[in-house]
């Protein structure tokens, strides 16, 4: 039998040990951290105002001195746009995923724990949100309340909560009749207390992983919305870059490639981080 561990720091070490095993996840963490730093240091790194047109000649090729990655059809600096675009992607991605996680957790928790009519009603509502096509909703909302980043965040948040809600509900359903819950009842705990203090901490790792994956998805959706012109036109954004680059595939392929790579990298990074978190937080095989 294994000896008992003596300090709680050991669990942090264990966590990192398990996370480390997934090489892709470590890469994801590196890329993610890099993106984060780029976003924070944007004003320092970027030479130009990203949305200012004609900072130089149009269609400059990448690696032209002074304009690291060239310029686009309106003379905007591609590098600066990419750098500031990181901010948009990360802010929208993380905040939207967070909103989705928060709303989804509450709904899933109440639904799964209490069951009955509450569960039925909440699940029907959830299903409604799953069925509605994103871009249609986005179009409708945007046409009523305008195009800005906050609206985009809200739209994406609304679309990601059903996933978390279902997951949370499933976990609460499975855990609510476990013996440690019964033991808490014998201790004298109230139902709400059991839901929040006994079960929720057990579900958080799973919610964390799901939310991290939602960040990927949010980044992708955000880019898609901007590409379709439904995003905020006043901020630098990878999706918008793609939109403007559409007509110039042959003349200036870098205008599509570069934002495309950025989107892919960001999406992949968070995907891998989510995967790594899953391995680290939910070890399936117990070590002997």
């Amino acid at each position: 039998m294994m000896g008992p561990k003596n300090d709680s720091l050991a669990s942090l070490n264990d966590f990192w040990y398990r996370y480390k095993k997934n090489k892709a996840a470590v890469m994801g963490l590196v890329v993610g951290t890099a993106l984060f730093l780029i976003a924070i240091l944007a004003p320092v790194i970027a030479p130009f105002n990203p949305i200012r047109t004609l900072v130089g000649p149009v269609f400059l090729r990448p690696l032209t001195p002074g304009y690291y990655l060239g310029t686009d059809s309106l003379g905007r600096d591609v590098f600066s746009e990419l750098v500031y675009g990181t901010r948009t992607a990360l802010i929208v991605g993380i905040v939207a995923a967070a909103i989705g996680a928060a709303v989804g957790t509450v709904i899933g928790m109440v639904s799964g724990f209490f069951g009955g009519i509450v569960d039925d009603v909440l699940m029907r509502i959830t299903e409604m949100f799953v069925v509605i096509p994103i871009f249609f909703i986005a179009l409708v909302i945007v046409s009523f309340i305008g195009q800005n980043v906050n609206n985009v965040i809200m739209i994406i948040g609304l679309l990601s909560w059903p996933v978390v809600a279902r997951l949370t509900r499933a976990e609460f359903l499975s855990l609510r009749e476990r013996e440690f819950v019964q033991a808490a009842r014998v201790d004298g705990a109230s139902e709400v207390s059991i839901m929040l203090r006994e079960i929720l901490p057990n579900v958080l790792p799973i919610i964390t992983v799901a939310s991290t994956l939602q960040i990927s998805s949010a980044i992708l959706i955000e880019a898609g919305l901007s590409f379709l012109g439904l995003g905020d036109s006043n901020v630098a954004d990878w999706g918008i870059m793609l939109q403007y680059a559409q007509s110039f595939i042959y003349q200036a392929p870098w205008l599509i490639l570069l934002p495309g790579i950025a989107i892919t990298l960001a999406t992949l990074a968070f995907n891998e981080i989510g995967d790594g978190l899953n391995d680290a937080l939910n070890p399936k095989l117990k070590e002997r």
Partner: protein
Amino acid sequence: MPHLLEVKDLRKQYPLKGSFLSFRKGKKLVHAVDGVTFNLDEGETLGLVGESGCGKTTTAKIILRLIEPTSGSVYYKGKNIFKLKRSEMYDYRQEVKLIFQDTYASLNPRMTVGETLKRQFTLHAVRGKSAKEEVLKLLKTVGLTPEKTFYNRYPHELSGGQRQRVAVARAIGLKPKLVLADEPVSALDISIRGQILKLMKQLQHDFQLTYIFVTHHLGVVRSLCDRVAVMYLGRVAELATVDDLFEHPLHPYTKDIMLATPIPDPERSRSRQRMILSGEVPSPIDLPRGCRFSPRCPYVQNDCLEKEPELIELRTGHFVACYHPLE
């Protein structure tokens, strides 16, 4: 003197899945507990014995108000436990406790031992620092020393014996009156069992506890209980003092499980009369019309197939539900 606990004709039925879709008569029901009656006095240790499916754990959980019975009643200190006011329930939760069978599953994997044990103290108005002190004292009482180390351990960091001690600690922390123990030592190694049983005996003495031991292990019952109720398929088949039951068993099922229990001595074990029953314990869904033991009973007669025998007091303090008891 009134009994501490009175269980009267307790029944619990579960509908079989899918049966609520069919509206035909005769829905399939699982009769987990099918008419259990017994009393318990203060300071006693009662053994609730039976094999899987006999309903002993369900009975225990009903007494703990973790499960609602389909019918029947449970009286604690003369009050119906299903009709308690909020303040009375608060007291009930302090006085009646359960040591769960699965010590791993009954502990929240995300909470340390200290956090888990502190819960009931804070819920019963012992706050903050003094709650922690109470828990440390408690850990010492159950032999989990050094206390501070165990306070910070997680369930997966404990051995089976240590988890069992935590389960005992959780049950006796608030100095209850009645403790139900569901298989408290069955999952433990033989050499460790004694440690836990000795502890439980000591605690009974120190805190004047009343125990109900729910177990399938007759050996433990022989040495630790005052009285025993043998359960079969949701009902009590026989109820007597330990000596009466083991020396003069009246119900054929009691005799059967006694003979089936191995004795750790080749001479005593191999010289016993063999009565190996055929068949398995049937499922508590389609119960036979008469005595529920009749399909397996080697002494079955016609009247056994007609009507279920009631639990009657054949001798002083010795109850049996059988038309043709063994003696």
